[in-house]
């Protein structure tokens, strides 16, 4: 196979199988760094070997075996600790087993891997970075660019995390049923934050940023396969798919943000809408409500309205009340206040907003909502000031442009 084709094939294999291979290697090596290095060695050898003798029948099994041997070499070279002799013996036995029989299916340990990467003993941002690096296969540089961070800081963050996992003995394990909900929530939050980071990226930004939306959806789909029939995983997937269905309508040609009520609904992706609604139906039929399912249901109500005026705001308000009971937060209160305004309860909406001033002082959508309400109330001074604050807080040019246009309308 010619080299460029082969390189493409290898990067495709790595995209599809990297997480699975890495998860299996971490399980047998008990060390994130060693596993990553060994897999890197194996891909380099694959390029040389496969150019000469063609693609093996099972490239993934080939890579796993070569990576395991590369790990043995690395441990031998390091020879730092006597204790590693046992590891070498065990690895060589695994290697012998692998050689003596047809390559077995590689067990899928990615569920362990993602729970470890999203362990609550790690900082939130670290969980995100580690998940993108180990499961998503993004490079440190790509992650740094995606989160507007510098390479060195991101590299340090990742290596500190890997060192802590091994030194503090964060277990490489799927949590018990008793701990499942809390720990799963940490995983789902990480995936949703990845998606949201992509969602807030403007059209002029590095493609890697908007690519985070697909990354988040891809991770949730993987989770659905690994832990089927979990309504909150399905809820999160539905939520992201339903949002993503509107992606093409979110910015106009000038790059300005188009809010939901003025979007061209013919640009919405009907295939994604159908898929999202079907996933949500499946989740809800399990009758175990959770915050992601409720958020997806709110998204579904928005997207099912033929026109903005058809939006069922009463139902949306009821769902926000539900969400407030399940997972109270200032942002949920803000969205509930917006729903109140939409059903005409302006006074109630304004007093709800005023109560949030301290919590959401630095949150752009809060000031935008305040401005819009004040404008409707004819309170022009408050409206203009709030728009100014929102513009100052916005980090996205398209959004700033839209906010400026709103301010000028007052």
């Amino acid at each position, binding site marked *: 196979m010619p080299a460029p084709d082969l390189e493409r094939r290898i990067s495709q294999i790595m995209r599809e199988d990297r997480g699975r291979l890495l998860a299996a290697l971490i399980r047998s090596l008990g060390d994130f760094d060693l596993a990553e290095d060994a897999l890197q060695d194996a891909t380099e050898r694959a390029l040389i070997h496969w150019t000469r003798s063609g693609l093996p029948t099972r490239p993934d099994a080939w890579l796993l075996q070569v990576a395991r041997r590369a790990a043995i070499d690395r441990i031998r070279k390091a020879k730092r*600790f*006597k*204790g590693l002799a046992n590891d070498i013996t065990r690895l060589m036995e695994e290697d012998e087993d692998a050689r003596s029989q047809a390559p077995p299916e590689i067990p899928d340990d990615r569920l362990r891997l993602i729970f470890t990467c999203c*362990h609550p*003993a790690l900082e939130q941002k670290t969980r995100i970075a580690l998940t993108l690096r180990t499961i998503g296969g993004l490079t440190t540089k790509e992650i740094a660019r995606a989160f507007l961070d510098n390479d060195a800081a991101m590299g340090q963050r990742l290596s500190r995390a890997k060192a802590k996992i091994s*030194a*503090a*003995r*964060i*277990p490489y*394990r799927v*949590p018990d049923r008793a*701990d499942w909900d809390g720990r799963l929530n940490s995983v789902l939050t990480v995936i949703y934050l990845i998606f949201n980071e992509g969602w807030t990226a403007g059209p002029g930004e590095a493609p890697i940023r908007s690519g985070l939306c697909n990354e988040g959806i891809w991770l949730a789909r993987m989770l659905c396969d690994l832990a089927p029939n979990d309504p909150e995983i399905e809820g999160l997937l539905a939520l992201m798919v339903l949002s993503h269905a509107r992606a093409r309508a979110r910015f106009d040609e000038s790059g300005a943000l188009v809010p939901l009520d003025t979007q061209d609904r013919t640009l919405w992706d009907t295939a994604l809408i159908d898929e999202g609604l079907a996933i949500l139906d499946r989740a809800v039929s399990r009758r175990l409500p959770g915050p992601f399912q409720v958020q997806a249901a709110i998204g579904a109500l928005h997207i099912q309205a033929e026109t903005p005026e058809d939006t069922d705001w009463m139902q949306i308000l009821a769902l926000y009340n539900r969400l407030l009971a399940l997972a109270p937060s200032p942002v949920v209160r803000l969205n509930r206040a917006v729903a109140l305004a939409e059903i005409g309860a302006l006074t109630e909406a304004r007093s709800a907003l005023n109560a949030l001033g301290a919590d959401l002082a630095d949150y752009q959508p809060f000031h935008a909502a305040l401005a819009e309400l004040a404008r409707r109330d004819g309170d022009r001074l408050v409206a203009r000031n709030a728009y100014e604050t929102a513009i100052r807080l916005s980090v996205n040019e398209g959004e700033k442009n839209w906010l400026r246009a709103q301010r000028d309308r007052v």
Partner: protein
Amino acid sequence: MQYLALIYAEDGAGPQYGTPEFEGYMAGFFAANKAYEEAGVMRGGNALQATSTATSVRIRDGKTETMDGPFAETKERLGGYYLLDCKDLDEAIKMAELIPTAHHGTIELRPIMEIPGDG
């Protein structure tokens, strides 16, 4: 793996000595001790006297300097510790949750360094 559970709380926070709440607080420690013994994780632990009794010692240029008070002036003071032998961090976190101070203070879990060739 052994973990040192360092028990931090602000002075004056939590139940005060002589109140009925304090009895409940102490009962929490007895319950934790019992749970640790039963789980076989207990390797030691003590409460410390107030930081007003602390002395810090260091040697600079060959000369011993002593100072009145704790090493770091922080709002949260180290009040005691447990040494727990747990299978992993998840188990250590579960054990730390049993320390009643966790409700108003903070428990810091620090894995004990394993020195190769030792024991």
